């Protein structure tokens, strides 16, 4: 696999915003609307996508590097979570196996659906961990926190569960970090809202 920075034509110390810019430029260049359905361009686009994944992933998930071989080594599963479930499924119920495949394909809603079909008495620490991952990456961070706590309760020694909880908590501090660059809003109700109010008044008159 090529160095993702090289794929994007950047130096390794490029900022995240530069990475985003470079990605956008290349995505435009290799877009099917521009290249027709040229397979070489499609392959190049895949490479660009994978490189973008790799860089953004590295910057947000320090604790775990996604691994994998050859093309797609920056696998989808490893993308947002820095997480790729092992392919050795052991004697998991079929629904768990399906959920793992969905998570690796970043289809989190489907993963949750598959997980929900595992009977309660078969819900191991791993089940709660997978559920936490799927919930977190589909936007239900509160449910994710509950599930990861249960997973840790069931398997206190598991480091990847703890690392995942850490990551969940970091999300909030990251938000607050960004938030601090803004003046606390709301001293006055933004006058941008005025047109909506007026519009509603206006429209209420005509209906």
């Amino acid at each position, binding site marked *: 696999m090529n160095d993702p920075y090289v794929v994007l034509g950047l130096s390794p110390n490029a900022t995240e915003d530069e990475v985003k810019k470079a990605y956008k430029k290349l995505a435009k260049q290799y877009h099917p609307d521009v290249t027709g359905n040229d397979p070489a361009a499609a392959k190049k686009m895949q490479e660009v996508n994978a490189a973008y994944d790799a860089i953004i992933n590295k910057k947000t998930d320090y604790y775990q590097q996604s691994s994998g071989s050859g093309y797609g080594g920056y696998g989808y599963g490893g993308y947002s979570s820095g997480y790729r479930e092992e392919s050795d499924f052991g004697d998991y119920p079929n629904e768990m196996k399906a959920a793992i495949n969905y998570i690796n394909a970043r289809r989190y809603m489907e993963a949750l659906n598959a997980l929900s079909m595992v009977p309660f008495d078969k819900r191991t620490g791993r089940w709660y961990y997978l559920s936490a991952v799927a919930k977190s990456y589909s*936007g239900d961070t509160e449910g994710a926190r509950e599930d990861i706590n249960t997973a840790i309760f069931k398997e206190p020694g598991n480091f990847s569960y703890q690392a995942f909880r850490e990551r969940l908590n970091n999300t909030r501090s*990251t938000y607050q970090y960004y938030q601090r660059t803004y003046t606390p809003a709301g001293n006055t109700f933004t006058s941008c*809202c005025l047109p909506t109010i007026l519009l509603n008044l206006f429209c209420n008159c005509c209906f």
Partner: protein
Amino acid sequence: MFGFVVLSKENASEEERSIYKSHYCGLCHVLGERYGKKGMMALSYDMVFLEMLLSDLYDEEKTTGTETCHIHPFKGHAYTYTKASEYAADMQMLLYYYSLLDNVHDEGRDKKKAENYKENVKALMLKYPRQAEAIKKGLEEIERKEDENERDASLMSLLFGRILGEIFVISDDDFFSSELRTLGCGLGRFIYLIDAWTDKKKDHKKGLYNPLDAKIDEKQIKAMLLDAASAASDAFERLPLDEYISILRNILYSGIWIRFKAEEKNE
């Protein structure tokens, strides 16, 4: 629908404000062009965020112009719209229609108004089956749970989050669909909660449903809101945005809290 997702003016430059405003007017323009006056009536700031997000993400081509309208009948103003404005306008129509139905259900008003949108909504349901179904089923479930007086506010907000998550995804096959869905979900949770918070006193007084218990204090709701907002921003920061990133960040880290702070002041 709710108008909570707005720019924080005091944190925006003159240029950012005027870009934002021209997109707002662009969305209004598209709503008017596609659906006439009743379309413009559905306009809200929430969808301007979605429009600018998608326009930036997919580098959509812009159409700009100057016009006068009902709100600005004398002074011409600039508008900007893109392909994403059309999508946002369609989603706005769907959401607006179902919010009217909700009014019919809750308070027995807006029945005639809703009737007016029926034909458009029918067409939109065929055009966007995934989104339309998520809105319809999701809002029906919310309504059912409201009738049962569900007390789990997190669960209720997640139901709304799931709806907005589907709306944020134009195409399921898109490389960034997962981030968009998460962003929409977090934002939806936030909107539902802040709406419940700002209506709490009024609802309790009138005996209307509100998912938040009277004893929930500002600190607790703030933690819930923060959790929802950070779920959204975590996904947002993974998207390759550049053109409008400072405006979108302003909304996500500052603008969405305006009504909360206003409420805080009134306490």
